[in-house]
C-alpha cells in the first residue's frame, strides 16, 4: 500500500473515526484505525456498537489494507512538519510515514482480523438535509434517558411516515418531539430507536449549514447514517417505545405566548440561586395580571422575582417546575415566540410553536 495525501485531510478523517475507536478494548485490533486503499482511501473506527467510516481524498499509488494504532497515528500525523504526507506499508506490515525530512517507521497490524461493520442496505432509505437532521437531534437528545433499567428510553425514537419524520426522546419526566416534512419519495412507515450515543457522534459530523442530504438506512438490528464521505453504522435499541402520542394533551387550561429567550434568561437567572449543594428548589411561574408572567425562586440563599410580558388565553397560572427541564427545552427553541399550554398544577405543560406542529416539549410540573 502506498498513498500520498494532505496532512490536514488525514487529521480531519482521523478525528472523525477516532470517535468510534474504543479507548480500552478487550480486542486489541479495535484500538486501531483500519486504513483501506482501493478505489479511494477509507478510514474505519469500530467499537462493535458504533462504526464510523470516512472517505478521504488521496493519491493511491498502490492498493492495500492495514490497521494503525489509533492514538499514536493521530499524534504522529499532527506533528508532521509538511502538509504532504506519504504513507507506505511493506509486505511485513511495517508502516513508513514520510513528510519533508521526517521519516517514521511504525508497526501496523494485519487488516484481516478487523471485524466487519454490518452492511445495512435493504433498499429503504430516508433522505434528510444535514442541517435539518442536526437540528432535530440537537432539539431532542437532551431528553434521552440514562436510566439503564429502561433501555428503550436510552435512545431517540425515529419514526417516518409518508413524508413526515418524527424524532422523540423521553426520560420518564419529560418528552421532546421534533417533526419535519422531508422532500423526495415517500418511504412508507418505519420506526426504530437509535442509541443516544450514536446520535451524539452523528451530530458532531453533521455540518450546521449543510445542504447535503443524509441518507438514513435502517435494517432489523442496525441503522446507517450515510453522509457521503462519512458513514456511521450503529446497533439499534430493541423493544417497544413508549406510546407517547397519548401523553401529549390536545387541550389546555391556560395558554401563554412568550419569547423563549426572555423566559430562558429569567429561569437561568433563577437557577443561579436555585442550584444549591444539597437541596433543590423549584422555580415558580405565577400571574397576578393577565399580561405578566412572574418567575420566582425562593431558596435558602435568597429570592429572585422577574416579570415577563406574555399573552394569556384562559386561566392565570401558579405552577412549580424543575427549572432544568424548562431550560433544556427553551434553549433549543429557535422561534421568536413559543406557545406554552398549561393544564393546571398537576397536568402536563407543553411548549409548541405558535404556528404549526414542528415541535412539542412536554414537562410535568412539580406538585406542591
Amino acid at each position, binding site marked *: 500500500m502506498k498513498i500520498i495525501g494532505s496532512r490536514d485531510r488525514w487529521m480531519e478523517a482521523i478525528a472523525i473515526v477516532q470517535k468510534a475507536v474504543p479507548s480500552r478494548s478487550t480486542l486489541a485490533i479495535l484500538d486501531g484505525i483500519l486504513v483501506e486503499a482501493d478505489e479511494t482511501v477509507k478510514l474505519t473506527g469500530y467499537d462493535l456498537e458504533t462504526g464510523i467510516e470516512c472517505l478521504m481524498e488521496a493519491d493511491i499509488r498502490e492498493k492495500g489494507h492495514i490497521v494503525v494504532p489509533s492514538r499514536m497515528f493521530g499524534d504522529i500525523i499532527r506533528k508532521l512538519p509538511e502538509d504532504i504526507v506519504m504513507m507506505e506499508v511493506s509486505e511485513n506490515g511495517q508502516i513508513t510515514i514520510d513528510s519533508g525530512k521526517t521519516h517514521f517507521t511504525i508497526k501496523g497490524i494485519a487488516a484481516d482480523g478487523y471485524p466487519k461493520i454490518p452492511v445495512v442496505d435493504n433498499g429503504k432509505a430516508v433522505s434528510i438535509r444535514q442541517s435539518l437532521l442536526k437540528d432535530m437531534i440537537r432539539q431532542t437528545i437532551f431528553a434521552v434517558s440514562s436510566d439503564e433499567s429502561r433501555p428503550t428510553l436510552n435512545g431517540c425514537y425515529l419514526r417516518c411516515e409518508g413524508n413526515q419524520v418524527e424524532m422523540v426522546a423521553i426520560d420518564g419526566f419529560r418528552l421532546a418531539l421534533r417533526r419535519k416534512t422531508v422532500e423526495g419519495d415517500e418511504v412508507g412507515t418505519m420506526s426504530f430507536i437509535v442509541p443516544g450515543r450514536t446520535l451524539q457522534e452523528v451530530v458532531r459530523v453533521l455540518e450546521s449549514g449543510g445542504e447535503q442530504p443524509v441518507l438514513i438506512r435502517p435494517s432489523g438490528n442496525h441503522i446507517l447514517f450515510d453522509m457521503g464521505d462519512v458513514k456511521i453504522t450503529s446497533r439499534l435499541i430493541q423493544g417497544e417505545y*413508549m406510546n407517547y402520542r397519548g401523553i401529549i394533551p390536545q387541550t389546555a387550561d391556560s395558554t401563554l405566548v412568550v419569547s423563549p429567550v426572555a423566559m430562558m434568561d429569567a429561569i437561568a437567572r433563577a437557577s443561579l440561586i436555585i442550584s444549591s449543594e444539597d*437541596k433543590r428548589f423549584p422555580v415558580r411561574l405565577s400571574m397576578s395580571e393577565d399580561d405578566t408572567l412572574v418567575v420566582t425562586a425562593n431558596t435558602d440563599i435568597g429570592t429572585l422575582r422577574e416579570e415577563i410580558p406574555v399573552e394569556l388565553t384562559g386561566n392565570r397560572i401558579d405552577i412549580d417546575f424543575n427549572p432544568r427541564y424548562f431550560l433544556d427545552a427553551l434553549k433549543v427553541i429557535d422561534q421568536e415566540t413559543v406557545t406554552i399550554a398549561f393544564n393546571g398544577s398537576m397536568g*402536563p405543560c407543553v411548549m409548541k410553536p405558535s404556528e404549526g406542529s414542528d415541535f412539542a416539549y412536554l414537562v410535568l410540573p412539580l*406538585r406542591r
Partner: protein
Amino acid sequence: MGRIHRLDDLTINHIAAGEVVERPLSVVKELVENALDAGASVVSCDIRNGGISSIVVTDNGCGMDRVDARMAFERHATSKLRTIGDLDAIGTMGFRGEALASIASVSRIQLRTRRPEDELGIELTLEAGTIIRESEVGCPSGTRIQVENLFHNVPARFKFLKKDATEAGHIVEFIGRMALSRPDVSFRLVNQGNELLHTPGNNDGSSTLHSVLGRDMARSLVPLAEDGESGILTLGGYAGPPSLGRSTRQHQAFFLNGRWIRSRVIGAAVDEAYKGRLVKGTHPVVILFLKIPSNLVDVNVHPQKLEVRFMDEGVVFRAVYHALQNALAAGEAVAAFDLQPRPRTGEMPGSRLAEPQAAEPGMPTAGAPGEPIPWLLADSGPPFGIHAESPATDEGQALSAPSPDGPKPQGSGAREDAKPVFGRDLAAARVIGHLSNTYLLLEHGGDLLLLDQHAAHEKILYERLLASALRRRSEGEGMPPVQGLLEPLVIELPLADALALAEAIGSIRSMGFDLVPFGPKSFRLGGVPMEVPRMDPARLLRSLADHLRHGDVADPSGTRWQEALFDAACHGAIKAKDALDPREVDQLLKDLSALEDPYHCPHGRPVILRIERQEIDKRFKRIV
C-alpha cells in the same frame, strides 16, 4: 387439704393452647395442615381482621363422620397416629392430636364436614371447647372450619396480638410457603374479601412461583438441578441470584417432606454457598424442598414442628451446599472476581466456576482440602492486603479490613499508621485510571486506592437527601415537591412485601412518592420526590419493603424511617454515565471528601479500598 390437685380439661387445653396457638397464624397453620392431611386438592382460607375475628378454612378432602367429628376436638385425639411405633415414621403434617382441642378452647368454632360417601354432612358448634350444638346439614364434601373470636377468653393473649395487618402478613407468608411446597394443591387466600393469592394447583412449580412471588422475582430465580444425594435425600428448589440479596432472611424458605421448617444446618449451608457473593448484610432468596425418608429425621422436637433433627446433618449440609453452588455457577450469577478472603475454603478467586473444593461440609470451619495459594492464605492478614478504608472497627471487618484499633495483622499488608483516615485530602488524590468503568484507581501517598464510583455516588446522594429532609423538618416545611412521571409505572411485588408497603403507604406518600395500591400485589408510582433523581423504582420498593418487614421503622414519622426510605432510594439510584469525565471525577472526590464518613455506602459496603505500596512491592518480590 392437698394443695396439689388435677387441673380440669379446659385449663389443660388453655395451657396447651398457649404452646400451640400463639396467634391467628397458628390456627391457620393447623387447619391448613389438617386439610392437606385429609388429601385436599383445593384449600381456601378466608380471614377477617388478620384472622382475629374470623378464620375460615375450607377443603375438599376426605371429610369426617359424626363420631370422628366429635372426637376431633378431644385432646390427644388424632387419626394420624395409632401406636408409639408410628411416631418414628410420621408422614402426615400433624400427629400430636392437640391442635383442634387447643384452638377450640380459646375460640368459637363451627365445623361442617361431609365424607364423599355420606349423603348428609354434620355441623358442630363449639364454645370454649364444649360442643353446644350439633345437627345434620347439607354441605359439599370435605371440611369447612370457621374459627371466630380467637382469644376472646384469654385476655392475656388477646392483648399481645399485633395489628391486623401484621397478623395478616404472617398468614400471607405462611400460605405462600405452603403453596410453594405443594404446587399440586390449589391455595386461595382471601383477606377482608380481597383475594390475595390464588395458585393454580396444576402441579407446575413455576406457575405457583409466579403467583406467590410475583413475576419479576419468579423470573430471576434459578431452579436447582434435580439431584439427589446417595438415594436418601432428594433436593429441589430455587436459588436467587446474589444481586437479589435482601436484608432479611424472610425470603428463604426450607421445606422438609412438604413441611416448612427452620433449620440452622440448612441456613448455614446456604450462607456458605453464597459466601463472598453477596453484599454484606444481605441474604439470598432461596427456596429449598428436601425429601428425606421420615425415619431419618425427627420432627417431634418442637410443638409447632418448626424445628427438626436430622440423623445425618453432614449429608444435608453437603447436598444443599453443592446444589446451590452448582445453580449459582450455572446461572452465571456469580461476580467474576471476588475480593473477599476465603481462607476457610482455600478457594482461588476465579476457580469458583469449577466444582467447588469446599470445606468439609458439616464442619465449615475445618481446614481446606487442596493446595492453598500461599498469599491468599496470608493467615490473619487479608489476601491482597486490601483494606476497606474504615475509621470504625465494626463494618470493615467482614471485608477483612483489619481493625485499625484492634490487633495488627501479622500477615502481609499490615499498616504502620493506625489512622486510616485521609479524609479531606481525598480530592488531592491523583486519578491514575478507571477500571471497567466501575472503579476509579487513585494514587494516594504512594498507595493505590480503589474507589467504587457507584457506591460513592450512592453515599453522596444519601447524605444529601437526608440532610435536606432534616432541614425541611426543622424548618417546618411540608413535603418535598413531587415530580410527576409521564407515564405511571406499575410495579408488582411479592405479596408479603406488598402488604408491608400498603401499611406504610401514608408515610411513603408524605415523603414525596406518589404511590397508590393497584391491585393486591401491585402499586402505581405516579411521581417521585424532586430530590431523588433517576432510580429504579422496583428496586426502591423492594428494598423499602425489607426495611419495613424487618421492623426497623416502627415509627413511620421518625428519622429512622427517612433514613430507610432514602437508603432505599439511593439503592435504586443509577449512576448516569459509567464513563466519567475528569470533571465528574473531581466533583465526586470533592463531594466525597466533604462527608463525615466517606468510607461506607449506606448499605455498609465499602466505598474505598486501599492496596498499600508495601504490599505491591512484596508481591513483586522487591521486598521480602
